[in-house]
């Protein structure tokens, strides 16, 4: 079954077209990595899928149901969760309260506090600490836990490794590895090696458009680099 489907999705900031006609479909349980240079439209695309930014044209479907007109909180209850760039924890609240909010307002399902702590054991000793006092890696783990506890069928993770130490990034990816097979994942990642090692499918955006789509094993480093920097497009325009 198709878990997530984008059909000619466009996104704008005023006159600036940030996302240009992206179409893709993603099977249930698949892991997709989204790469691209800064300003390529990755975060805007995630925000559009999550309902935080309006879709100017096109359609977004989740498990066969069109969700283009749904608000962000309705999409969460339909089974879509975004772990946003910058973590966006409620810093005045404790870690436990951050998780409770996801549990109380998200979709009903198998994920609860106990199962989240099983998947992310590093959160357990932090439960009664204020989220604002955590390290970057701890915040990322809590943000993933908060998204998980809403019981998503599709989990979007935006810039999961940004600003983290290599050890913290290792910890985050070990946690994500435990989720493989439980849900569909879309991960925005600047680190190409991580993205290619983790995902089964990779897409590259450049200037808001889909430049490359394929399995990491089938793509050459040169193809990815060219798509990442939009070299192919530049060559075409020169020709």
């Amino acid at each position: 079954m198709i878990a997530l489907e984008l059909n000619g999705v466009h996104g704008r900031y005023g006159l600036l077209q940030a996302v240009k006609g992206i179409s893709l479909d993603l099977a249930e349980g698949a892991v997709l990595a989204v790469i691209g240079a800064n300003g390529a439209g990755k975060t805007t695309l995630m925000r559009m899928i999550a309902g935080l930014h309006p879709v100017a044209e096109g359609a977004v479907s989740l498990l066969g149901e069109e969700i283009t007109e749904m608000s962000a909180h309705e999409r969460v209850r339909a089974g879509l969760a975004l772990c946003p760039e910058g973590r966006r924890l409620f810093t005045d609240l404790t870690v436990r309260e951050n998780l409770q909010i996801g549990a109380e307002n998200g979709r009903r399902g198998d994920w609860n506090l106990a199962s989240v702590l099983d998947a992310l054991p590093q959160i357990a000793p932090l439960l009664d600490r204020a989220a604002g006092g955590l390290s970057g890696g701890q915040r990322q783990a809590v943000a993933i836990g908060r998204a998980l506890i809403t019981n998503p069928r599709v989990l979007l993770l935006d810039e999961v490794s940004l600003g983290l130490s290599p050890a913290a990034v290792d910890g985050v990816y070990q946690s994500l590895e435990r989720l493989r097979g439980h849900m569909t994942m879309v991960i925005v990642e600047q680190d190409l090696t991580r993205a290619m090692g983790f995902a089964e499918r990779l897409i590259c955006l450049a200037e808001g458009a889909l430049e490359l789509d394929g399995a990491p094993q089938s793509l050459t480093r040169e193809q990815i680099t060219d798509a990442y920097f939009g070299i192919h497009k530049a060559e075409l325009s020169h020709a």
Partner: protein
Amino acid sequence: MLESIIQGILLGGYYAVLAAGLSLMFGVVRFINLAHGDMAVLGAMIALWLVQVLGLGVPWAIALTLPMMAALGWLLQRFIFERSLKGGFLIPILTTIGLAAALQNGMFAAFGSDTRSLGAYIGGLSWASWQLPGNIFVGKLPVYMFATALVVLGALHLVLTRTGFGRAVRATASDPEAAALCGVDAIRVHRGAAAIAVALAGLAGIFLALRAQVTPFSGPMLLIFAFEAVVIGGIGSLRGTLLGGLALGLAQSLGGMISPQFSLLAGHCLFLVILAVRMSQGAASERGGWRAALMATVLNRAQMRRRA
């Protein structure tokens, strides 16, 4: 002196209830309700109408007025505030200025311009007092009102910290987008917060009508007091609002010892001093309340001394 301090603390409880609704609206909905004082007066007028026209007892009038005010808050948020918030920063301010004018003139048309009080309907409680050692007299009504204020604010604190709705309110106040990503329906939360805020305004108006008089045009002065308590205590913090109300009540009561005319002015002076400290310590005050601002001032001075 001790009597003035006691009176100031008791008065502070009333200011805290008056300010709590304003603080909640701004902290959660990001909406400055300039009609807050007029809503307090409306609450008083509704209670007066229930007592004077329908002949209900004051407790029954209070019990009926508060849900009516909560319903009014919900409806205002649903049909007016939500729409005006979409119009940017200026439209909500203009909307509530218009609402305040409409409320004042509506109450004037409905109830006339006479001063009114609920004091006449609570028997001897209006003037009954306890005599403490040192020939200090403490009015029973202000004590009961202060106790009610503590219970109401304590209950609100419990709702905000121990219930799912409260956690959703705090999450929405902290980061509305992140709250939506957890499945929180911000619209529902905002309507709930507006209902609580307007009910609190109504309770404050009833308090005022019990211990003094109200007219349809009393609202703007109440708004100023509410703003002062909120700014002194820190926006969005219930504990800060209580402390702000107490500080304002104490300032007015102690100012009244110097001269009766200085009573209100002392409160305004305290507000201006706190505002000046907050503006000079913007970053510190963002971290939380007037205590952080004062602490930052002390730390800055200590650092300057060490450098010297």
